[in-house]
Structure formats: structure tokens, C-alpha cells
């Protein structure tokens, strides 16, 4: 089961160049300054864009282009563990976005409880008692710590 090491450089280089070009156009489209030299706020971003494009190009020249299709191939045949990690990362991101969406409506404690219990089920498995306990202590504890001990107000419960 020896896995060939995949080199992402070629693909990375292309992404870097695209990013550089996009940033270049956005820099050129920046509004001119109304005070001082009109081009003043644009020079620095412009320089960055050009440097990024050059570096992306150098990276592309140095990389092994035959590896680029291999990257896509390898993506299809990932190991079960790699898939598991990607799945966990994806779920965490979704949970985090939902966390953000409900945060201002249900308040810190409930939203954080939801976030923590979801992630705990993801990492810790179906240990309902432990997970519930940790999630409750964390959300209430952190709320108390920030609100009372540190003096950083967090939105508490919606009905209080």
C-alpha cells in the first residue's frame, strides 16, 4: 500500500496566477483618491499583484506539469481516512455557518450549546451524557466568564 506522493505545485501555481490577475484588475478598478496623488492608494496593491503573478509563473515553470491531472485522479481515490477528515472539516464549517446565522436570534448560550454539541457528536461519537455535559458547561461557563469576570458582554438568552 505505498502511496505515491502527489505534488500540488502545478495546480497551486495556476490558482496563484488567477488570484494575481484577479487582484490586478480589482486594483486597476479602484477609485482614485480625491486628496493628494490620485494614484497613491493604488501603487502598492498594483505592485503586489504583479509580484504574485510573477511568482505564480515561476512556480508553474518549476513544477512538474504531468502531476496536474494526477491530482484530480488522486482526489477520486482518496483513502477512507482522508475522506473522513474532509467530511469532518466540511461538517464543522456548515455547523459554524449555522452558528453564525442563529447567534443573534437565539443568543450566545443556546447557539453555543448547539455548536458545541454538534461538534462533540462529530469528534467524540454518541456519548450523549458526556457531550451534553461538556456543551452545557462550556456555553454557560464561557458566558459567565466573559460577562461577569472579563466584562465582555455577550448576548445572553433571547427571553431574558
Amino acid at each position, binding site marked *: 500500500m505505498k502511496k505515491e506522493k502527489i505534488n500540488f*505545485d502545478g495546480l497551486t501555481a495556476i490558482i496563484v496566477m488567477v488570484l494575481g490577475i484577479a487582484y490586478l484588475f480589482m486594483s486597476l478598478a479602484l477609485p482614485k483618491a480625491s*486628496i493628494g496623488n490620485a494614484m*497613491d492608494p493604488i501603487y502598492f496593491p498594483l505592485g503586489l499583484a504583479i509580484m504574485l503573478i510573477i511568482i505564480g509563473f515561476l*512556480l508553474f515553470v518549476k513544477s512538474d506539469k504531468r502531476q496536474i491531472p494526477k491530482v484530480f485522479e488522486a482526489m477520486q481515490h482518496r483513502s477512507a481516512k482522508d475522506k473522513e477528515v474532509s467530511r469532518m472539516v466540511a461538517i464543522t464549517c456548515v455547523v*459554524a455557518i449555522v452558528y453564525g446565522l442563529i447567534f443573534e436570534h437565539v443568543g450566545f448560550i443556546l447557539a453555543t450549546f448547539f455548536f458545541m454539541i454538534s461538534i462533540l457528536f462529530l469528534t*467524540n461519537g454518541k456519548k450523549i451524557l458526556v457531550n451534553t455535559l461538556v456543551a452545557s458547561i462550556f456555553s454557560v461557563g464561557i458566558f459567565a466568564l466573559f460577562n461577569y469576570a472579563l466584562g465582555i458582554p455577550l448576548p445572553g438568552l433571547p427571553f431574558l
Partner: protein
Amino acid sequence: MIEILQNLMSGFLIALQPYHLFLVAFGGILGTIVGMLPGLGPATGVAVLIPITFTMGPTAAMITMTGIYYGAMFGGSRSSILINTPGDGAALAATFDGYPMAMKGKAESALAISAIASFIGGTIAAVLLVLLATPVSRFALKFGPAEYFLLMVAALSMTASMSKGNQLKGFVSLIVGLMIATIGIDAQSGVKRFTFDILELQTGIDFLIVIIGIYALGEVFKSFRSIADGTKKAQNKFGRIWISKDDWQRSKWPILRSAPLGFIIGALPGAGGTMASLMSYNNEKQISKHPEEFGEGAIEGLAAPESANNAASVGALIPMLTLGIPGSGTTAVMMGALLMLGIQPGPLLFTQHPDIAWPLIASMFIGNIILAIVNIPLAGILVRVLAIPAKVLYPIVLGLSFVGVYAIAGSVVDFYLLVIFGLAGFMMKKVNIPTAPMILAVIVGNTMEQSFRQAIRISDGELGIFVGSTLALSLIGITILSIGFPMLKERLSLRKEKSATEAV
């Protein structure tokens, strides 16, 4: 000299107040816990725990963070020794001989010597820091905007160049970081740049969000792998954690030699703890009379990198505190926290805020002592607490990241940015793009652009100002050298490889 001692004494008076002592110990223990988690190192520790310092006031906050920093350094080597998983790159060398020692039933001596070596290395480096801080910051006061800009260019390009493996990717990371820094309203002209008409982006992306995203979220994402791998069981029953006389005889010189070496490497931007510990390990192996024992559980092979590693972490504070330019991920995080508190590190820190600078330095001495105390007799207990719940602790680190980000600006838009940067950090690690240059660039990006424009304005648009002084020219020289040297080295090693294969 007397002035330095006086300053240091008054620093000690502040740092020794019971409240501050408590904070160092508290930060140290929290840092140790985060540092012990596989995959999470000092940068993550400080990033996640920054929010608790928000309302503390600068002196107390810095003292707490020093505790966290040191704690995480001590903690990182615990997991290297016991489960062969370094907390971060700098603790890598501790696995070479630390883990074999634990396997041979000498975990107690391994834990003890790593704490002792860390303590001695850290203390020697703190003495060097005391001696160097004032002269360096006095020298830095001579810098004009042009020199300051070039200094940042030099420091950043050194960091990018030294990124292990691929210099070009280091520069990609660096420039993307500078690009992130350009987002928001330009302070000099009022022009909105790259805000995509999102109100929250007008003030720019807070560097703390980038830091927490990359170091907390990104690292935890990466560590999900260790959950998928299943957890390794750590030894959790110990005898007396201490070393024998013979152990001490073997390790005392390696420890003393590695401390100054680590300090110097740490003070160079970009080099940092990983390089310091690996270099001192190789050094000791070369001069040792029993090089064959290295890797099999030689105590000096653990003592030397541990000393160098902690010395480097102190050395890394020199450019951050005296020049305002962080040289490593962790010091970038600490600088981010300082800026958050309204303190601008740099040459003026020592003249304008001696009340922060000196207690901070004094608390390094105290932090070292407290952590050695915490880590030797209590190591058994701390490790036992942590042997079980990595699966529970990762979610807590994630939870703390989100709370921390909310505490910065009170906006949930930052949650989404956090997710974006977390994913970016995770992807960057996948394709081997180093993250540290990006973090440094995000932090100094604005200052860098401002000094560039100031210099141009002083010279009335003449670019000649950037080559107008010896200082400027030597900084340009350093930059060119830092880019050229690794390239040359790569060429040479390629040629060597080629001739080696041809010979076969």
C-alpha cells in the same frame, strides 16, 4: 548597564505582585494544556486564549500571554515524549530521543530533563534579551520611513525564504498576506479598497481573525486526522520525576551550549524554534562521543533541543519588541494581541512604555521558574488529566475560537471570515504553503505600505530615497542575500544529487 538593572528591578517589582504571579501561573497551566494537544503549539495556544486578556490592561495581558507561550512550549514537548506527537515544529526534535527514552521506561528522566533544559535555556536567553533590548531599540530609533520599509521587506523576505521546502511558496503566502492587509478603507486617502461593498470589511480584516482562523481552526482541522487515526495511549503512571547525577553530567554542557545558539537563531526573522532545535540536535550529535546513541534515547539528544527551543522563543521576542516586526508565528500572535490593546511594539516601546516592556521581561524569568515548578512535580497529574479527552478538547478549542472572534468586534460576520481563513489554513497546509509568512504580512502590511508612502512623500516621488543611506543599502543587501542564499543552496544540493546518481 545600571539603568538596565534599575529598569529590570522595577519590572520585577511589578511582575512579582501576587495578581501577576497568579496570571503567569494561570496562563502557564492553560498554555501547557493547549500545548500538549497533538498538533497544537504555542501559536495556537496564544491565539485561542487571547480573548481572556482583552480587558486585563496591557501589563497583565502581556504577562498572561508570556505564561501561555512558555506553558505551550513546555507542554509541546510532553506530547513529543509520551506519544511521539509534537505539539508543533519546535517540539519535533524532542521526539527523536524523548520518545525512545519513554519507551525504555525512562519517561520520568525525559520529562524532568526537558523541563530543566527548557528552564535553563529560557533563563539564559532572558538574560541575553535584557542586555540586548535597549541597545537594539536605540539603534532602531535612527530608522526613517524608507529604512523602516526596507527593514520590513528584509524581515518578511527572510521569513518567506526560510520556509522549509519551498521558497516560492513562502513568497506566495507572504504576498497574499499583504493583499489581505490592503482590504478596508485606506487611512491616508479614504479610498475604499477591496471591500466588495460589505460594511464590515470597511475597517479591514482584523489580523486576529486571520490568526485565529489559521492557527486555531486550521490546526484543529488538520488534527482531525489524529481523531481518524485513533488516539495513542500515553503512559500515565510515573515514579518520581527527576534525573540522576549521571544524566545531569551528560546533559549540562549540551544545555549550556544550545541556549545561546537557540537565542541567536530565534532572533533571526523566520528561523525560529524549529530550526534552532534541529540545529542544536545535529550539533550535539556531531560533537558527541557516542553519536550512535542519538535516536535511541540519549538524554543529551533531548536536553539540547529543548534548551535551544526555549531560548529561541525568547530570542524571537527581540525583533518583535524592539523593532515591531515579529519574526515567527507565535510572536506575530503576541504582537497582534499587543496592537489590540493599543500598544505599538517597536523602538518606542522601551522609552514610552517601560512600564509594560520591563515587567514583561521580568515575567519571563518568573514564568520560567513557575513553569519548571508546575512541570516537574505536577507533570504526572497534568498528563493524566490530558490522557483522556483530546476528542473533547478539540471542540473546546474550536468553541473558544468563535467566542474569541466575537469578542473582538461583536459581529457574526467575523464567524464567516473565521471559517474562510480556517479552511484557507487547512488547504495551505495540504499543498505545503507555509502559513507563518502570511500571518506576519497581515500584521505588518499596513505599516509597511504607510512607511513606503511616507518615504515617497518625503523624497517628493523619488525612489532614490530607498538607496539613499548605508543603512538602506545594507538592508537591501540582506534582502537579496536572504532570497539568493537558499536558491544557491538548492542548486548546489541538486548538483550533488545529480553527480551522486551519475556515480551510481
